[in-house]
């Protein structure tokens, strides 16, 4: 099903927002990523056709921005910032311990397909490290001043199908 068939109201609103059609590409890509957590070749072709762009052009935008993905990963991407200010507050140790607890390396997904742990660049939350963002489809939620224990509680909650907002 094309994006326009699947989300007619949202696609219409996106096109109405900009004076130039091409500007719709980024919001449309988020829409395409909502359900599966990554953007398929078919979805890129769909968006390219809507915007009268070459599919390669659309793929290059997916490749350029870090929040778009063209490969499947865990249901949740747990993106830990370990840039300088966070690292000064123990983010590297946090990331190591988290990986050990989950039994994965950075970049890997837990065997149940729930969580992919990633190290990312600055998220503008340097005073609240260790911290990470949880990306699920087109949604991004911050978790700040985290400990490994609280993060493991969050993972258990996610596994049980509860978004652990109370843990933020």
């Amino acid at each position, binding site marked *: 099903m094309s994006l326009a068939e699947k989300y007619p109201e949202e696609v219409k609103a996106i096109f109405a*927002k900009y*004076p*130039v059609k*091409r*500007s*719709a*590409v*980024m*919001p449309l*890509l*988020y829409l395409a990523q909502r359900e599966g957590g990554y953007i398929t070749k078919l979805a890129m072709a769909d968006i390219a056709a809507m*915007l009268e762009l070459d599919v390669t052009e659309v793929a*290059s*935008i997916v490749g*350029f*921005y*870090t*929040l*778009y993905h063209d490969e499947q990963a865990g249901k949740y991407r747990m993106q830990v910032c370990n*840039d*300088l*200010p966070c*690292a*000064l*507050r123990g983010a590297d140790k946090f990331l190591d311990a988290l990986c050990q607890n989950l039994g994965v390396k950075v970049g890997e997904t837990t065997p149940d397909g729930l969580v992919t742990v990633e190290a*990312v*660049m*600055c*998220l*503008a*939350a*340097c*005073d*609240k*490290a260790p911290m990470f*963002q949880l990306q699920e489809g*087109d*949604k*991004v*939620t*911050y978790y700040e001043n985290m400990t490994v224990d609280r993060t493991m509680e969050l993972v258990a909650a996610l596994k049980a199908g509860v978004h652990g907002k109370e843990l933020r």
Partner: protein
Amino acid sequence: MTHFLLRHRDISDIKDIEVYKKNGGFAAMKKVVTDMQPQQVVDEVKASGLRGRGGAGFPTGVKWSFLPNNIWPHYVVCNADESEPGTFKDREIMESNPFQFLEGVAIACYAVGATEGFVYLRGEFQQLQLFLDQCILQMEKEGVLGDRLFGTEYSLRLKTHLGAGAYICGEETALLESIEGKRGQPRVRPPFPAVVGLYGKPTVINNVETLTNLPFIIEKGAAWYKSLGTEKSPGVKVFSLSGNINKPGNYELPLGTTFRELIFTHGGGIPNDRKVKAIMPAGASSSIIRVDDSTFDKVMNTAMDYENVQSVGSLLGSASVIIIDDSHNMDWVIDKTVHFFKHESCGKCTPCRDGNYWMLHIVERIQDGQGTNADLQLLKTVATQVNGKCLCALGDFSTMAVTSALERFPEDFAAKVEA
């Protein structure tokens, strides 16, 4: 001290539109639209001496006056792509004092005759976009955004645009490319955005904090604003304090506040009785200030404004002050910064793209104890070859920490290559 930007510290529910209105909200917007000509607004902001808070410190009113009056429409774009390691002030302003921020965007639009304004948020601020969209709807209901505002002919729409993870989009021409639906890569200048900006039209790009100053400047006047801060750097600034510090966070203080006051009075000093070894006052893009027994007092007594930070060999930038204690070595610090810039280089200019790739290789070699004295010289050479040779400042920024660390902390590197 009363807060003018982080007003939620004094009035906790200022993000409620009714509370904002009760506390004088939208009075400045009404004043400019009903009582002032756009040029008068530009003149008032020029007279206030307000300078861009995104890092460059360019006078805001002067920037506005570059827009030609024979090419229309004009656009205002707010840069809310806050991504510099060490900076987290714009996020707090937008989350906690959203209406003052949006009123500031609206005032800027009126001043340059724009009827459409964009707020460009970094992709990670997805939840914040939902929140600001709701705030914009509320302002439309209040009649401070929308058609024929306050019974005049002036109409204004504000829209948010969400990025998708790219530090480079904080560079203003890359940001415009991104709104246009392209990869966020900087444009060749000239032409400057003031003439050929968003969709090829004259465009003003201002930072979140800069714009949040505007309602108070309009309400209380340029003379009042100039009474805060220093002569050349008037007003207040939100300092983001992070790293090895007891109380990290944002502190709104007059420009010209000393490092000592920020670090020890507000920040509560350094944890574990450690000493300050280095300060990066402009985030990862800083030249690193060396602090030791012989320079401690000079650095701590330095006023943090656009002029004086230069006297200790760095820049104020966006005032994202990272404190590094004496348990850390500078080879580790620049490994972090180079890793960041290598990842964030957009790839358009060869010196930045390849230079950062090679700098990271060399720095990692040194960190791993495999480096030699020749590597130190090579690292300096590569940094020199990147500096000043790229379309935007990212290339320059990536070399600041490297060059200053090598020059000011030679013992850290000597120990590493000898070991």
